[in-house]
């Protein structure tokens, strides 16, 4: 398309601050009079607290206060209000805050922590949803029935089921009557961690004037603001939340979690700011973890390959609190069709309390977990039908006129998965596969993917712009920059909309609820689409202000004026014009009388026609979709079982590429992360609920040596909602890696895996088993 600034690789406006070490992250903030907190974690993952002795800790050097949760009488949460800032009378997971020390230095706070003595009465521990769902299971939340929750949720009091979501399309499970062939299986996407390089942290200051000031490494300042205001009974306007630069998020810095704990601690020392930054261990044990999703899936098809029915059950081991996980279970459930149309769907998602840290958002948000099942099953179904796996998929892809599980109709502008699939197939499967040799098995695998955001009725993003007398523009938005590059996107979209060079646009750096325009939270790969739309709306308003002022100065009608980025001019006579800078403060006439408004504007944008699900679990809750295809070429070393990903190919229909360098970077990173999940990342628990590998030298995230060569292509079928046709892409690249890799392992060895990660040990064991069968 003929865009001037969209589609070009501008360098990030925050790059120089970051390469010089001057970008300010949470831990870099120091406030005069600041105290430091450390937090005691329990010895048991599920236990009653019988007694906490704090006297010895209180007497330690530098200690200002020792805090427990004993007097805490409030719960918090955005979806289901089941969270407490600190354990009150029981602990529900191993990383839960039990007590805290506030001291003058982190060292003193740490030393005193060891002097707190707690007596527990252990309770049974459940790690997996199925254990916690058993009839005789002890309740993790005895008062589930008393918790406030969104009207769309359906908790089951008296059980550990925090929510039950059910979707029925067509005749549901009865649809299998039309099937000639049925495949069924259960797949596991185990616990993991986002493991951003910057650990979580927060500073909270209960000020003498009864306002609350917060700094956090979070992507949702307005949720933190509103939630703390509710918990502490102050007006939302009196809670001010600052967000500095964020060192990676990938999901787990969304929602409100550690901020409530630090607020609880800081509330005991009003007047003093209190800082806490997670150790890496705490980042694993005491912030949000990921996944924990088992998908039981049944797919039925006609002999010719037409899909007729799907039944999927999501067992989500959501951890000790469900507020941050419940929407992931729901997203996993209704997106478990993958990118296919099924006339009949019967889908159930269980959000289940267990004794692990709460599961929260992780890039992909339920999609990669459930679509691991779908894309494995499509390969298995093709085998059972004796059909080509690409042909089977091509017959059933969602596309123009097709209806997804939610009942949403797909349009051409949702993108062209058929082309993505064909291109990726040609790239990876178009050449001869190397033959098995002494050292290696060789395999290729494919996965097609689909993702929608998880929205909310109030999920808006907003923009504020002001023009200066030199025609340059300042822009403020509420979007959190976590590394995804939204500051660059804002600049380019605004440049295009305002018809001025990006260099004339300065984008905000930090977020501050006092100054930033409102945003729900920066999630769901939605900033480019929704934020971009807000930018265009704001630019339109700003141009309107300029024209209204110019109409007075030029003594004409607003609709007789044109704007070109530099001037407002008469349509009939472009020489009759006023420079935009001369209109910025209103137009100052020769005698000093000034007419018109200051050239500034604000606007916001939601996902159009987002709606809550109806009683069938259906509704316009996805609104926007991005489709794509991914494939892998790998080698399996026979001796060690080690899997080498030699090449990874992706193609997504993103509507419009805004910045080629950044979008490639996004997919490169997402694929690498997902390969980590498929091959080695798993947060391991023992039966007592202890985490066995809460350190980066035990929980291996990919290094440069694990990163494969990647081919990344984009298709551009313009979107109807997004700015200049652009769609979301931030999370989509993580979805296909695990199923593509498992499909490739089958291609190489004939072995079917149903769970990740496929570590060398597991691969080797399976290869040995295969030899035994062969013998």
């Amino acid at each position, binding site marked *: 398309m003929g865009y001037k600034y969209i589609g070009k690789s501008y*360098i990030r406006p925050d790059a120089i601050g970051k390469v*010089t070490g001057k970008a300010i992250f949470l831990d870099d903030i120091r406030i005069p009079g600041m105290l430091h907190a450390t937090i005691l974690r329990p010895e048991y993952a599920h236990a009653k607290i019988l007694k906490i002795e704090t006297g010895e800790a209180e007497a330690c050097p530098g200690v200002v206060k020792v805090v427990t949760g004993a007097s805490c009488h409030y719960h918090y949460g955005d979806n289901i209000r089941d969270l407490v800032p600190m354990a009150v009378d029981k602990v529900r997971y191993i990383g839960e805050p039990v007590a805290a020390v506030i001291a003058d230095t982190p060292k003193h706070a740490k030393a005193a922590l060891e002097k707190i003595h707690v007596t527990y009465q252990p309770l049974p521990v459940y790690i997996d949803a199925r254990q916690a769902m058993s009839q005789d299971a002890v309740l993790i939340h005895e008062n589930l029935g008393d918790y406030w929750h969104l009207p769309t949720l359906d908790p089951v009091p008296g059980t550990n089921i925090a929510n039950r979501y059910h979707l029925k399309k067509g005749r549901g499970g009865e649809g299998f009557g039309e099937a000639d062939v049925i495949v069924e299986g259960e797949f596991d996407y185990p616990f993991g961690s986002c493991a*951003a390089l910057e*650990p979580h942290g927060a500073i909270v200051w209960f000020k003498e004037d009864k306002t609350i000031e917060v700094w956090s490494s979070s992507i949702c300042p307005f949720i933190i603001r509103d939630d703390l205001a509710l918990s502490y009974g102050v007006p939302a306007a009196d809670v001010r939340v600052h967000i500095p*630069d964020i060192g990676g998020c990938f999901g787990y810095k969304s929602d409100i979690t550690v901020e409530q704990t630090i607020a609880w601690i800081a509330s005991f020392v009003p007047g003093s700011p209190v800082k806490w930054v997670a150790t890496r261990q705490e980042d694993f044990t005491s912030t949000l973890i990921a996944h924990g999703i088992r998908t039981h899936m049944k797919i039925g098809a006609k002999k010719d390959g037409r899909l007729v029915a799907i039944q999927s059950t999501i067992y989500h081991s959501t951890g000790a609190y469900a507020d941050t996980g419940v929407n992931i279970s729901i997203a996993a459930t209704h997106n478990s069709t993958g990118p296919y149309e099924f006339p009949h769907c019967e889908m159930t998602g269980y959000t289940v309390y267990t004794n692990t840290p709460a599961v929260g958002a992780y890039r992909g948000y339920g999609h990669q977990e459930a679509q691991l099942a779908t894309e494995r099953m499509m390969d298995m179904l093709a085998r059972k039908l004796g059909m080509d796996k690409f042909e089977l998929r091509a017959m059933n892809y969602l596309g123009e006129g097709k209806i997804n599980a939610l009942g949403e109709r797909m349009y051409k502008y949702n993108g062209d998965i058929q082309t993505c699939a064909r291109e990726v197939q040609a790239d990876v499967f178009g050449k001869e596969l190397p033959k098995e040799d002494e050292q290696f098995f060789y395999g290729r695998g494919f996965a097609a993917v689909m993702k929608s955001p998880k929205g909310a009725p109030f999920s808006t993003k907003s923009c504020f712009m002001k023009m200066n007398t030199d025609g340059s523009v300042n822009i403020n938005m509420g979007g959190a920059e976590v590394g995804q590059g939204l500051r660059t996107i804002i600049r380019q979209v605004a440049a295009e909309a305002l018809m001025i060079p990006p260099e004339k646009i300065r984008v905000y750096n930090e977020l501050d609820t006092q100054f930033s325009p409102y945003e729900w939270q920066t999630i769901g790969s939605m900033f480019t689409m929704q934020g971009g739309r807000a930018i265009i709306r704001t630019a339109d308003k700003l141009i309107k202000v300029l024209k209204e002022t110019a109409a007075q100065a030029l003594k004409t009608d607003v609709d007789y004026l044109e704007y070109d980025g530099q001037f407002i001019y008469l349509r009939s006579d472009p020489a009759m014009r006023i420079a935009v800078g001369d209109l910025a403060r209103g137009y100052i006439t020769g005698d000093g009388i000034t007419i018109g408004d200051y050239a500034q504007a604000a606007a916001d944008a939601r996902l159009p026609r987002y709606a809550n699900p109806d009683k069938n679990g259906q509704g316009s809750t996805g609104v926007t979709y991005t489709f794509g295809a991914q494939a892998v070429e790998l080698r399996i070393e026979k001796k060690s079982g080690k899997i080498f990903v030699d090449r990874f190919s992706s193609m997504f229909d993103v509507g419009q590429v805004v910045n080629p360098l*950044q979008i490639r970077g996004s997919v490169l990173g997402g694929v690498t992360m997902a390969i980590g999940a498929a091959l080695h990342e798993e947060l391991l628990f023992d039966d007592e609920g202890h985490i066995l590998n809460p350190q980066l030298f035990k929980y291996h995230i990919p290094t*440069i040596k694990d990163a494969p060569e990647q081919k990344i292509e984009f298709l551009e079928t313009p979107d109807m909602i997004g700015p200049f046709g652009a769609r979301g892409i931030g999370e989509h690249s993580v979805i296909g890696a695990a199923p593509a890799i498992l499909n490739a392992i089958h291609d190489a060895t004939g072995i079917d895996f149903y769970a990740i990660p496929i570590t060398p040990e597991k691969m080797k064991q399976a290869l040995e088993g295969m030899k035994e069968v062969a013998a």
Partner: protein
Amino acid sequence: MSEMIQFTLNGAERSVAAEPDLMLIDVIRDVFNLTGTKHGCDNATCGTCTVVVNGKAVKSCNFPIEKAANAEVMTIEYLAKGTVLHPIQKAIAESGAVQCGFCTPGIVMELYGLLENKADASEAEITNVLSKHLCRCTGYEPIRNGALMAQKLMQARAAAK
């Protein structure tokens, strides 16, 4: 009285009282307020705390301050001269190697330790030093590209001298 440790930090003579378990990163961040050096893990795994000591890249989070006695310590803050970036900073900024930027200072210092000593380091050597650093954002390709671009800029700079 605890022993005073003398060293040079970014070209200036500095001293600090030795304390048990006091690591170089604590002195850099908490005593001298140079916050470009980051804490990303508990045990020298992630590389975000990398600084250059006597010309060599080291992890400052497990570098006891006593070992810095009489040494020349250089942090990320010392590389740019005013608005003029070091070629490594320029290349890393332009190659797409920066996303969240939390790993960036450590990686820049690692490359400084390598390339200022060995301008003709092979790509395998570059990959080897980069494998001591974790990045969750980029998939590493743009970091490798940035390192190679930096090498070219530094070779050009040397040729111009």
